[in-house]
């Protein structure tokens, strides 16, 4: 009884293998039967039946129907595609409006409580710092085009640079990495965004990037000499990001044959009351770093 069951199971497997070989055209019926001579008697009628079924051509509809049905379906698909796009656009615009309304409500509440004013001076090691960052994000919600957004990202990158200077001046290691990483992000965002800005305004942004990155490198090179060794790696990475941004902006300006720089719009970084970084240090910082590398 069990022997018969086992034999049936083996035959089921062999039959399936042979059918797969027949359907893929890798083997013919005789070849399959030659592979399993001990099952030839049972296998042959089953494979002949399979071959007969396979040989019957697939029924086909009239070619006219196939073409007209295709046209009808594609017309429906196009209509659905268009209405789907319109729906997505409507949802996106409603979402934008909702985001702006929410932002306004938040601002009213936070300004009323005085927290916003307090957070404006906070540094990354302060509990109010997330609120400062959130308020910057709110400003982005109200920027309606890439040019305005790029200017904000430049401003935020400047803010982070100021924070870095203040943290180092106050000998505060905590929060330095946050400020550095946020600053890198802002530079990278503006680099991406500049591609979508119309040519007439792109030049202005590119020059602002040049000015920002030049200033960043000066400050970061000075900062590099003041921080303990474990923090130097993060500063070096920030210098690299800044340098790359500078080179890309320069290259874009050269490609666009833009020679005369417009009047810079970014305000200079305010002087930071710095007890540890002397103007002399700042002036020679590049050489110091180069010297330390050597």
């Amino acid at each position, binding site marked *: 009884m069990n022997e018969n069951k086992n034999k049936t199971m083996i035959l089921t497997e062999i039959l399936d293998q042979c059918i797969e070989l027949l359907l893929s055209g890798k083997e013919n019926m005789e070849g399959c039967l030659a592979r399993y001579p001990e099952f030839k008697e049972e296998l042959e009628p089953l494979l002949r039946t399979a071959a007969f079924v396979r040989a019957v051509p697939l*029924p086909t*509809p009239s070619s006219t129907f196939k073409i007209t049905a295709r046209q009808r379906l594609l017309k429906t698909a196009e209509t659905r595609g268009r209405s789907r796009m319109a729906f997505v656009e409507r949802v996106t615009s409603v979402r934008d409006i909702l985001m702006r309304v929410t932002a306004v409500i938040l601002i009213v509440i936070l300004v009323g409580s005085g927290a916003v004013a307090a957070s404006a001076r906070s540094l990354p090691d302060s509990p109010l710092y997330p609120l400062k960052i959130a308020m910057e994000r709110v400003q982005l919600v109200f920027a309606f085009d890439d040019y305005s957004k790029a200017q904000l990202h430049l401003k935020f990158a400047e803010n982070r640079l100021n924070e870095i200077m203040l943290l180092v001046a106050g000998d505060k290691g905590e929060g330095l990495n946050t400020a550095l990483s946020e600053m890198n992000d802002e530079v990278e965002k503006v680099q991406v965004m500049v591609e979508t800005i119309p040519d007439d305004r792109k030049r202005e942004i590119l020059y602002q990037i040049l000015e920002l990155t030049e200033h960043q490198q000066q400050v970061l090179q000075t900062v590099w000499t003041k921080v303990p060794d474990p923090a130097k790696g993060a500063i070096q990475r920030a210098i690299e990001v800044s340098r790359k941004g500078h080179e890309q902006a320069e290259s874009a300006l050269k490609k666009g044959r833009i020679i005369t720089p417009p009047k810079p719009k970014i305000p200079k970084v305010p002087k930071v009351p710095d007890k540890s970084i002397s103007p002399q240090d700042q002036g020679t910082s590049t050489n110091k770093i180069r010297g330390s590398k050597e």
Partner: protein
Amino acid sequence: MTSLKTAQDLKDIVERAKVGDSEAFGMLYDIYFDRVYGYIYYKVGDPTEAEDLTERVFLKVLEAIDKFSWKGVPFSTWLFKIARNLIIDYYRARSRSTMIPVSDRIQTIDREDPEEIAIKKFSYEKLYAAISRLTEEQQEIIVLKFFTNLSNAEIARTLNKTEGAIKALQHRALRSLYRILKGESNDEREQE
């Protein structure tokens, strides 16, 4: 005719169709139309009904494709499940549980040489008549295996069975079909 080089090609086409690309949907139609029609034809036995149901399958696909997810389910399985459900609804609406006997309606299949039509008609009639005497499950396995090019794994998912069960069912279906074609058995459904 749309040709697929890799599974990724199909995935790309499906993804485009999901976001409303009508050209991509046309490609899916070209890839699957004949197989879906063949499957439905052997399940309903009427070319006009098969045409109508095939078009409805693709309309359903169009309506639901944005909800299709690749979570381990091949697109073909999903498509043939839609076709299968429509066939079930079709029979439910007509209060029938088995296939309709084949008739002279087959001659409307296409406009070929009359001799070729006669040969095809004979093959279709003979096969259709034999298949219609199988049990529901056996009919499904023969049609899905030999007319849709689905793999055992895809058939298993379409019929909610294991691959082992599909192989066993295929064995029994071919044995029954052999007996019917040889004239040893009139109707496998009566033996169930």
